[in-house]
């Protein structure tokens, strides 16, 4: 994966990554004020820390946007409590946590130690997606440095509390980014979501009360403790405070990760940071928050990046993965590619997702080949309705929502496929720029195994 352009361009307004390049050495991190937030935190009680988090109004950066301070306050009492950091970043288009782990791993480690101290946790597990081998070894290195400095593995200054931090690599399942599936995988079980209750706050890692947070959420904690929750809440909008990492990809001049205040708009991101569309192309649509979200149209470019603004526009901010789609793109093929991904990643546990994602994919494959019927376009919509909201976790929804939005926004294109009996788009339609091809092979389950 190429390194993000932001490696070279420092962003003075950024809170998480305000510098160019990376700070993987602990000395460099400390020289720039690193681990000072931890010192501050050690002088605070758990309640004070939770209060500070609540004051910051930080919303979880993993996708759902749940207030992180409130989440921490739910954790059931108990001797053995664990912190799990979700680094299983797998939503197509999302690569922001990777940037944090690559460039500023100690900020994540510092956030973890502050969180652990806040909950007096027995240990923290960074569950990192299997493909992030380099990032995992960077984190291992950072942990070793923090251990040598006494931040990990020995009592923290002035306390008898010992923070323990471990890296656990996943095995490649997208669904293990879902919290209960992540915990099942961490516990050595098949990576599948489980019904809630019990919630992780009651029974999570090793069946003990567990607090689970996204990498970016945890990495933001030193910023909040450093500047104070109230000051942090001054950035962004009232309901969506602070800055957030956005992964910009697709048909845009300067793809990459950009840290944006949540008061900015998609236009600021796509046209401002991303430099707009490549020469001679126009914007057809954009995915506002990862491939599972309904797409937005060009006339919605001024939608705010804030969680509430995207919801008002009919989609969701999700993980902050913005995929720009230009006018050459076949939307049927885009829908098929999206559905294929979710079919491939469905864990197989619940019926609507397991069967529905496959049915959608096969019908879309027919549509894209021009073999579909007009009635099947309605059937596709009906299947989306029958999947969405009926599944054990939200993976089924993640397939149904974008497919529905593709059909609703570009129905004419679908109908044209049916009428012509083929895909009207040129053969070099730039699908591979949107996602790397994951599924070249035919559907795996059609023939006897």
């Amino acid at each position, binding site marked *: 994966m190429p390194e993000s352009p932001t490696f070279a361009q420092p962003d003075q307004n950024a809170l998480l990554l305000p510098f160019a390049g990376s700070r993987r050495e602990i000395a460099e991190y400390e020289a720039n004020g690193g681990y000072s937030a931890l010192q501050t935190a050690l002088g605070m009680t758990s309640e004070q820390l939770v209060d500070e988090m609540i004051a910051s109004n930080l919303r979880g950066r993993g996708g759902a946007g749940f207030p992180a301070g409130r989440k921490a306050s739910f954790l059931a009492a108990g001797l053995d409590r664990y912190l799990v950091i979700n680094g299983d970043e797998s939503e197509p288009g999302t690569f922001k946590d990777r940037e944090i782990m690559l460039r500023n791993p100690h900020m994540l480690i510092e956030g973890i130690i502050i969180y652990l101290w806040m909950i007096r946790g027995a240990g923290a597990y960074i569950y990192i997606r299997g493909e992030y081998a380099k990032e995992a070894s960077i984190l291992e290195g950072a942990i070793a440095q923090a251990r040598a400095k006494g931040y990990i593995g020995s009592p923290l200054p002035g306390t008898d509390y010992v923070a323990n931090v471990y890296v656990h690599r996943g095995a490649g*399942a997208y669904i293990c980014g879902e919290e209960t599936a992540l915990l099942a995988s961490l516990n050595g079980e*098949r990576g599948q979501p*489980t*019904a809630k209750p019990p919630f992780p706050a009651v029974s999570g890692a090793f069946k003990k009360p567990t607090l689970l947070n996204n990498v970016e959420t945890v990495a933001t904690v030193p910023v909040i403790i450093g500047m104070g929750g109230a000051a942090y809440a001054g950035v962004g909008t009232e309901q969506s405070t602070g800055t957030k990492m956005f992964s910009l990809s697709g048909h845009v001049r300067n793809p990459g990760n950009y840290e944006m205040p949540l008061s900015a708009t998609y236009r600021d991101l796509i046209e401002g940071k991303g430099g707009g569309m490549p020469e001679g192309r126009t914007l057809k649509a954009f995915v506002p928050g990862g491939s599972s979200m309904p797409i937005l149209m060009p006339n919605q470019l001024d939608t705010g990046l804030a969680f509430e603004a995207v919801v008002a526009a009919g989609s969701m901010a999700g993980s902050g993965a913005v995929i720009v789609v230009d006018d050459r793109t076949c939307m049927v093929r885009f829908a098929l590619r999206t559905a294929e991904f979710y*079919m*491939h*990643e*469905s*864990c*197989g*546990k*619940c*019926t*609507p*997702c*397991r*069967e*529905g*994602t*496959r*049915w959608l994919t*096969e*019908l879309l494959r*027919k549509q894209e080949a021009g073999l579909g019927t007009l009635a099947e376009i309605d*059937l596709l919509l009906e299947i989306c309705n*029958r*999947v969405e*909201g*009926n*599944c*054990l976790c939200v993976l089924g929804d993640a397939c149904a929502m974008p497919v529905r939005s593709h059909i609703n926004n570009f129905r004419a294109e679908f109908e044209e496929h049916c009428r012509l009996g083929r895909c009207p788009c040129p053969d070099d339609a730039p699908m591979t720029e949107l996602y790397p091809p994951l599924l070249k092979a035919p559907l*795996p*389950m*059609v*023939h*006897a*195994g």
Partner: protein
Amino acid sequence: MSATQIDTVTLTVDGREITVPKGTPLVVAAAEHAGIEIPIFCYEPRLGPPIGACRMCLVEIEGAPKLQAACTLSCGDGMVVRTAGTSEQAKEAQDAVLEFMLLNHPLDCPVCDKGGECPLQDLTFKYGPGNSRMTLPKRTYEKPLPISPSIVLDRERCILCYRCTRFSSDVAEDGELVARERGAASVIATFDERPYDGVFSGNVTELCPVGALLPTAYRFKARPWEIVNVPTVCTGCATGCNTWSTLRENRVERILSRNHAAVDEGWLCDKGRFARYEPRDERIATPLVRGVAGLEPAEWDDALRTMGQRLRHQSAAFGEGAVAVVTGGNLTNEEAAGWSAIAADLKARVASAPIAAAAEWERIDACLAPLAAIDTADAVVVIGDQEPGDRAGTVELRIRKARRDGAHLAITGPGGSGLEADAATFIRTHPAAGSAMLAALAIAVAEAGGEHVRSDAKPAGSVEELAALAGADVAQVRELAGTLARAERPVLIVTDHVAVAEIEALAWVLGLDRGAGGVLPLPVGANERGERAVGLAGGWDELLPALEAGEISAIVFVGADPVLDSADSERWQMALAQTEFVVVVAPFTNGVTAQAQLVLPLDVDHEREGTIMNLEGRVQRVRPSLAPVSGVPLIAWTSRLAGFLDVQVQGNPGKAFDQLAATRPAFAGLSWKGLGERADLHRERPAAAAPVGVPAPTAPIAAEPGALRLIAPRPLMSGAAVARTESLAHQRAPWVMIAHADAQAGGITRGDEVVVRHAAGEHIGTARISRRLLPGTVRINWSGAAGTGASATVEAQ
């Protein structure tokens, strides 16, 4: 939880207000309290917490943003629930889930064995769409796929409800059946395509809500409308699991569980489910009398008259004890009562138990635990060399459940049993050291003291001495004793090599006669308790010296075969060769028929009518589905034989039972008609008395220098029926377990073919290596030829 402490919640389901105990799953509350069916596939409370996978039970909850699965949702106070009956949204979801399930289902109901008794078919009939919108090719798989010699899998029919894999991982805990691949490509599979290796595997065929997992033997055998299901009780062991025997055209084609929750919780072991006394044409079908050319068929009346005359003659000529009647704990109570009456009239010696200690187990009746006590136990201690599951199959599942529910599970023995891995305590002892272990525990508990603990009448000796005798670690013994002393409801499960006096001592110290908890000894024979209760008591090995001394001149074996089933095989054989009159009643030619002057047919499981008493003392009805091979029921010809002896024996099982109820205390208050299909446990606890004079346990036998000590308990997968059931061959395949250290010393690795040599011969088996098995011992899964304690050597082939 006592009745007064149950918190209740009140909620509304489809407009009906119901009040249910807090924590009740909504799906149960709706059905049981509101009479509203919420259809389900994956929900099965016996498999542990609900998983919400199939999504069939989606309902609308007022205030919830989306539909909720009624199986994973506990009833809440004030909850307003609308099921598919009243909610459009829920109805739409229900249709959706059924449509999704049927998308790739082959709909081959006309040729599916499940057709007619299939939950998917029933729910589709009731709620399903009338047509399909699936126009694409369906998923296909290779089929049928054997997952073991007993079970076939049809992956096309599978709706992936995960009941089977949950059974394997969460009930039997064998980890054999798993889901492989992901998403729509998910399939049920065994690891690396190896056969399902577990003695409870057959349960998955009953849990399967479609025709995906089927018993191989039942495939294409019958349609549900042409079979008769006869309610009966398994006689494979003393648990007494309730079963249906599926009868078609005078053949038992299938055995299903009949779920008596207090006995079997709806589980069966594979022996009970798959083992058959077949082929029937190899059975002994007529009386056989030894003539010049060997055993020759004889007329019933001739054979019985001769037998009566000769038995009467021996008794008259040689007096009391000249005749012996030996049973194996497998007769019905009524059959046994007949033989008991005959034996009494002939002043005959009797023996019914393959292991001597069992003969005295009535002495601990004051502490006898019902099976259900395991469920609520806070500590379960298993004492003996043998695995509980080998003696009483499904009891193992109960022990595992108790452990999962938080009971402290302790295993003591020489190691290498399946329960140790997850036990909280494992105390390794010498083989055959159960008595010393119990005595050590009794003293240690008395010394630990506690609210329920009695410290009078503790056995003689010290914990240190007895622990050393048992080969156990003293600190571990004391720690377990502390746990037991604090436990409110401890249950002791005793298998073999344990003397009753020591059980009595520990039970007394723990005060197990006072109600909670108890002792559960696991007998070998299915109706050993019942046979003792009608007067056929005593251990086989107590007879042997008299037989060898020539004091017994006539012996009758009714369903007993010490030549095959006892450790003293050779001694029995030699003694029988000198015995004047040997009668054998058996289903097949066996170890003792060779020396018999007269052989008579024995009825087996599905041919018998009567009652048996299970290990907890529950009297249950056995109902016949087939006529005996001989055409004459055992109880009928026993009555005829008695007639020749001028003894009154009732030949009708019902009348015989009512006689027992009138005359034998163990059956008091029961009646043939009142037993019902799921029998209650009627047992009065006698008062307990302080045990007196507990003898000092003897030291376990040491092996000869350079040899290993053999541990050879009788495994579950043994006996005439198992030996004749081809599909169980893989389950009875001989293995030889040796300790890791011994394996290293002998250069043996897992899977090697090894030969075990001992005084009585040699056997070949597959090597298993255990780090828990006591070094210096070898555990094998077949018995009979040499007993526990014998010296043996193991070498790679």
